[in-house]
């Protein structure tokens, strides 16, 4: 086995779709949390392959998209400084702040460098002792072990000029926040497969119990998504609300304990503001006080920033599964990947970018997926 191709088999996909069609008796709304899962769904047209009774809405699992405007503006303020080398994952570079984006700042002379890993940022810090090297530490729990290791090593090796600008976000509080909203339509979740590889899935059990919502921890290949949808629909049809694991080839219930251990040593939980959603209590990581010498928020005093979102952008509604990208008047016209108005179009994992990449903006309105009434249709292949 190579663990990838097998999970893309069209023949098996049709089997799973057939099974979903066989068991579904009423309409259900499911949300997939991860941006990577959104991508697979849109790329393979999974939302159109499954019976129309099952509606997939996209969740806030795009860390680039949910990084608060205040944090983006802070990043820009720090990156502008001549004594700073600002390092970041590539997709943060074009996220619009109130005024500009990192790529524009780079073109104007700021030393901004794309890195693949926080370890690369640490290497840059070692190689440039006369500069302050800042790493933009965004991400969900999947990225936290890497960031924790970089900070831990910075302190261990005495790399004093390395700091991180932390904007980590956590999935379980986001799911709870969505479920608590009076406008919530989501009845079941495809849980985040890679976040759970790190964290395990014990934290989802109280959520499923409290809100009576099935949560199926799901992988990222098309067959994973389809199997996750099937397992969730099976539970909904049977009136169950358990946490199940569709992705046992990498996810264990307890997760990766070594990774969790280092993350807990370096970070602690705090409140976090999510772009387009607002502040969610205890929904993010901050650096612990012991690591304050590597905390960019403490090191760089940035003035109060007046944040300004473009009015037409509905990123926030897309992130909460309330609207789809094609509901936005600017989608594919004023807002494109070349000239993005909001984060969901900039990030590779954003729903708007995914829809655009797979041509959804080119369709006539009648062809767009809308939930239909309960009739079983033949699949459009």
């Amino acid at each position, binding site marked *: 086995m190579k663990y990838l191709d097998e999970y893309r088999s069209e023949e098996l996909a049709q089997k799973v779709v057939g099974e979903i069609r066989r068991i579904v008796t009423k309409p259900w709304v499911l949300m997939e949390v991860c941006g990577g899962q959104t991508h697979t769904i849109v790329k393979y047209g999974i939302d159109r392959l499954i019976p129309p009774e099952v509606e997939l809405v996209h969740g806030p699992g795009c860390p680039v998209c949910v990084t608060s405007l205040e944090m983006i503006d802070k990043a820009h303020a720090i990156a502008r400084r001549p004594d700073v080398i600002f390092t970041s994952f590539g997709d943060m570079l074009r996220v619009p702040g109130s005024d500009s984006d990192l790529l524009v700042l780079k073109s104007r002379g700021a030393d901004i460098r794309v890195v693949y890993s926080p370890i690369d940022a640490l290497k840059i810090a070692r190689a440039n002792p006369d500069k302050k090297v800042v790493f933009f530490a965004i991400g969900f729990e999947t990225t936290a072990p890497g960031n924790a290791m970089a900070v831990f090593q910075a302190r261990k090796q005495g790399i004093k000029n390395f700091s991180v600008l932390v904007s980590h976000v956590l999935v379980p509080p986001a799911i709870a926040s969505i479920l608590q909203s009076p406008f919530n339509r989501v009845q079941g979740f495809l849980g985040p497969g890679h976040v759970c590889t790190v964290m395990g899935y014990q934290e989802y059990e109280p959520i499923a119990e409290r809100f009576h919502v099935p949560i199926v921890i799901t992988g990222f290949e098309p067959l994973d998504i389809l199997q996750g949808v099937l397992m969730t629909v099976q539970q909904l049809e049977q009136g169950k609300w358990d946490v199940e694991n569709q992705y046992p080839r990498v996810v264990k219930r307890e997760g990766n304990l070594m*990774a969790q251990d280092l993350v807990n040593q370096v970070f602690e939980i705090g409140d976090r503001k999510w772009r387009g959603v607002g502040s969610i209590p205890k929904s993010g990581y901050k650096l612990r006080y012991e690591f304050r010498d590597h905390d960019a928020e403490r090191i760089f005093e940035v003035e109060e920033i007046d944040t300004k979102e473009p009015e037409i952008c509905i990123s926030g509604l897309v992130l909460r599964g309330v609207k789809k990208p094609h509901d936005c008047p600017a989608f594919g016209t004023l807002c494109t990947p070349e000239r993005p108005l909001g984060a969901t179009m900039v990030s590779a994992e954003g729903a708007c970018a995914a829809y655009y990449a797979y041509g959804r903006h080119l369709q006539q309105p009648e062809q767009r997926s809308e939930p239909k009434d309960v009739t079983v249709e033949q699949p459009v292949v």
Partner: protein
Amino acid sequence: MGKANFGGIVKQVCLEYTPEVEAGDYVLVHVGFALGKVDEEEAARTYKLLEEMNQLSELEVPDL
């Protein structure tokens, strides 16, 4: 640190979080860190479940 082959591209990967892996194993990698070993038995089991799906229901007469 170890080396991981991403479909032909070989990159350095930190193995601190997966001390149990050996050469030839498959790992899940994120931002340069291996986060978990791919469990071959579970992978095969998931795949078998998918293959066996629908075998009984294919024998049913569809509703018209």
